[in-house]
């Protein structure tokens, strides 16, 4: 498996985002252990130091914690994980709204189009 990264952006950030997406979507759960740095480095085919940096960043953001000698774990805190979820949703919505505004749609039109689209599905 070779994930597609946008190599114009730092790779450690994208690895962090990919892990956060897995948490938000439920593929990873609170308390789960993350794969070892070596395994992740093979999975993403990147330098182990890049994974190390991604893990450090997640820990800094409070998404994970390390148990000495045991590895890196996802925090087991529903409230924090819910915040993570809404933060990611907000970001996606902002991107979407920016793109629609760029195309010249008004707020009301965006809402109408969105309603229409949601009904269709």
């Amino acid at each position, binding site marked *: 498996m*070779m994930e597609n*990264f946008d*190599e*114009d*952006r*730092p*790779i*450690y950030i994208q690895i962090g985002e990919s892990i956060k997406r897995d948490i938000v979507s439920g593929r990873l759960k609170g308390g789960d252990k993350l794969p070892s740095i*070596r395994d992740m*480095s*093979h999975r*993403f*085919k*990147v*330098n*182990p*130091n*890049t994974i190390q*940096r991604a893990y450090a960043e997640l820990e800094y953001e409070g998404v994970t914690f390390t148990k000495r000698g045991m590895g890196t774990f996802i925090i087991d805190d529903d409230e924090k994980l819910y915040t993570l979820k809404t933060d990611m949703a907000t970001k996606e919505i902002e991107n979407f709204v920016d793109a629609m505004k760029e195309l010249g749609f008004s707020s009301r039109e965006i809402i109408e189009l969105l309603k229409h689209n949601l009904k269709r599905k």
Partner: protein
Amino acid sequence: MKAVLELRDVHKSFMGKKALQGVDLSVGAGSVIGLLGPNGSGKTTLIKIIAGLIKQNAGEVKICGLNPGEETKALVSYLPDTQHLYKWMRVEDAICFYDDFFEDFDRLRCEELLDYMGIDRADKVKDLSKGMYEKTSLALTLARQSRLYVLDEPLGGIDPVARDTIIDTILSNYREDSSFIISTHLVSDVERLFDTVAFIKEGKIILDGEAEELRIERSMSIENIYKEVFRNA
């Protein structure tokens, strides 16, 4: 982080032609550095000096604190960019050759790597395709338990599937106490492997730094930085 390799103001000329014009470079333990530059920029000359095959005219080269020589050849595992195995050999003979030659050669590891890459040990070296040859010599190089692996163009003329296998093999060999120097002009294929990159042009390092920092600074992939740096080369 103690430097595995330290180069200071290294110069080298061939018959009056300047190949290296004051190269400074430091490689710490556990790092994977990409030596990036077009053909004729001095990559191979620099690598041959590190491997102890040729000597610089001026400047200092230290490998784990030692001058290049017999002692450092035991610390440095070198993959040349040319076909260096004897044509009469079978892959098996090449394994024996390395086993005799290098004290740090791990025969089992080599066989494991060859199996992983799908190379038959009974094959004759002269019958190997270009890709299979490269895999074979890479397996031999990586099966040594060295402090510094110096790979000169390990991906030249290899298909994408073989490339992934080779990248996996390099990653599986990564240890915190050993370092890699990988020279290439096929940047996009391997840029994820590097934690540090050094761009070499006309025998000088014109830009170097941590790969991720360069991506942040310039909002560009290492490949695009490469294109920008060498546009007029």
